[in-house]
């Protein structure tokens, strides 16, 4: 055992120490854990389902409100009834006095003008509101949002919707996603949309 002289043991120890020090001391420090995300509240939409019956009822109201003649009304798509249907997103349990953003998730096979999937977008903002001091919020869907994102209309240079270009979203159960200021604060809900008559009807 004469090869294990104290000098060799000492030098080996020093070398190991030198090797360990940089690895241990200079290793990137783990970032401090982020503060926990504020808890997300709830999200719901009223009405929870929009179907053709509801649209037809509303269309009749629209015709009365705008005093359309039967001839004019006959040329208009019944989906325009959506414009007089209040759509409200409600929630509670959100961070007090903070904004809540409501998005409609657009399924991958559904075309949506303005949506840039190449940038990773999968949804469009459809309403925005601010929670009150109790964490409750209510946000309405504006007419432009209904036209742009539910009826998928184009616009004429005269700043009017091109009713001939109406392409209502395909029938389905859609996901609505509410997000707080902290992007980790997310809640989802569903919304049944039947904005077109079933094929054959």
């Amino acid at each position, binding site marked *: 055992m004469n090869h294990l002289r104290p*000098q*060799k043991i000492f*030098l*080996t120890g*020093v*070398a190991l120490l*030198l*090797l360990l*020090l*940089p*690895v*241990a*001391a*200079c*290793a*990137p420090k783990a970032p401090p854990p982020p503060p926990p995300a504020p808890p997300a509240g709830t999200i719901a939409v009223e009405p929870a389902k929009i179907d053709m019956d509801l649209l037809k009822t509303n269309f009749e109201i629209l015709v009365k409100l705008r005093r359309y003649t039967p001839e004019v009304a006959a040329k208009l798509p019944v989906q325009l009834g959506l414009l007089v249907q209040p759509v409200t997103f409600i929630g509670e349990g959100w961070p007090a006095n903070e*904004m809540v*953003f*409501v*998005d409609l998730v657009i399924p991958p096979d559904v075309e949506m*003008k*303005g949506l*840039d999937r190449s*940038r990773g*977008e999968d*949804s*469009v*903002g*459809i*309403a*925005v509101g601010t929670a009150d001091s109790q964490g409750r919020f209510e*946000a309405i*869907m*504006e007419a*432009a*949002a209904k036209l*742009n*994102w539910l009826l998928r209309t*184009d*616009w*004429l*240079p*005269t*700043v*009017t*919707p091109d009713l001939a270009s109406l392409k209502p979203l395909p029938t389905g159960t859609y996901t609505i996603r509410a*997000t707080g*200021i902290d*992007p980790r604060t997310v809640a989802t809900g569903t919304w049944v949309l039947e904005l077109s008559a079933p094929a054959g009807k």
Partner: protein
Amino acid sequence: MIRSGFAKAIAVGACVALALPAYIGCAKEAKPQEKYVTFLSLSDITGPSAGLISPLQETLGWGIEDLNSRGGVDGVKVKSIVIDTRYDVARAASAYKRHQADHKLVMAFIPQTAAGKALAPLMDHNKLSSLTPADGEFQAIMGRTFLLLTPYQDAFGATIDWILKDWQAKGKTGVPTIGYLCWDSPYGREPLRGGKEYAEMKGVKLLPPEFFPVGAADHTVWLTRINNAGANYCIIGGVDPTPSLIMRDANKLGLKEKIQFVDALYCGPDEPVGIKLHPEAVEGTVLCSAILRGDEARKNPLIQSLWTKYANRPITEMRALSPGGFLICKDFEKALSIALKDVGYEKLGTEDVYQAYQKITGNSRDGILGDCLYSPTSRRSSDVVKFYRVVNSKVVPITDWIKAPDTVSLHKEW
């Protein structure tokens, strides 16, 4: 002295161990090779106001492309992110939230008053500055929003001054009666917030304003009411073709002989749009503009060079507000240059760019717009306007640049 082979090996090992930190523990992460800042545009590309915003966004894109082709600002490139909001506040808000943490996002272009206001709390929190067309409210309540053009209400005041001069030049006595006809929208109402007070101060008789729904197909009702009230002049607005459609209806009613129509909201009859559609009806219409128009714009060297370089179509197709995009870029380049000199790229943040925008006072706009007025006490881009008239289907100048009165300060209830 350590002479054995073992000791030598240990010594070499120790040296290697000492050198290791540079390669493992202490080596810094590779940085992105390209230095860049992000410029976010929440614009309407395919929605209702696309006719106004899209040309502006197009030239802004070319301006950024040109800036990057010149190497950026001190080697810092500009990454442009354009979101098509379709003039929807919720969409704009959602998109902003999505991009607010993007790498060195230092400026946003939000050409929609309602979206700008909805996003104000978030943008204040992020200390992000933004640019918006010409709502005087942002001068009255100064924050991080800068105007691109002379405030609408100041242009309204300048229009009142022009009308009074024109009235006198025609040898008339007393004061004229003036009507106002525009969209029923924040844009349509903004000129009166200060403009109305200015008209009262000048003693002109301003008729009750007439507002019509955006997209109205016919303006006969409102024009008739203005005519019946005895208007000598009528200030109109809306994004072309709206003003041209107003003129179409005024022409049909035979009002052009009696009433001089003046567009004062910058988006009046445009050669490639309304003037082309209704040449006879718009003939003689006067336009108050904060930006160079017609042949003057098409012959401006900066506009001409950038248009020739990037637009794959004749300059005759350029829209009235198109040059604005180049100017946004010109100001941004100057402000970014100052901010980079002040703090350098690594430390550059939203606050630095905000501070820098307040230091570009006097930045030249190459004659396309008045020189820059941004300062710690001004969110106004400029305080001058120019008057044009539609003559033989061309927009021709009838004045030089005229200083517009400060009407923003006259309005007290924002």
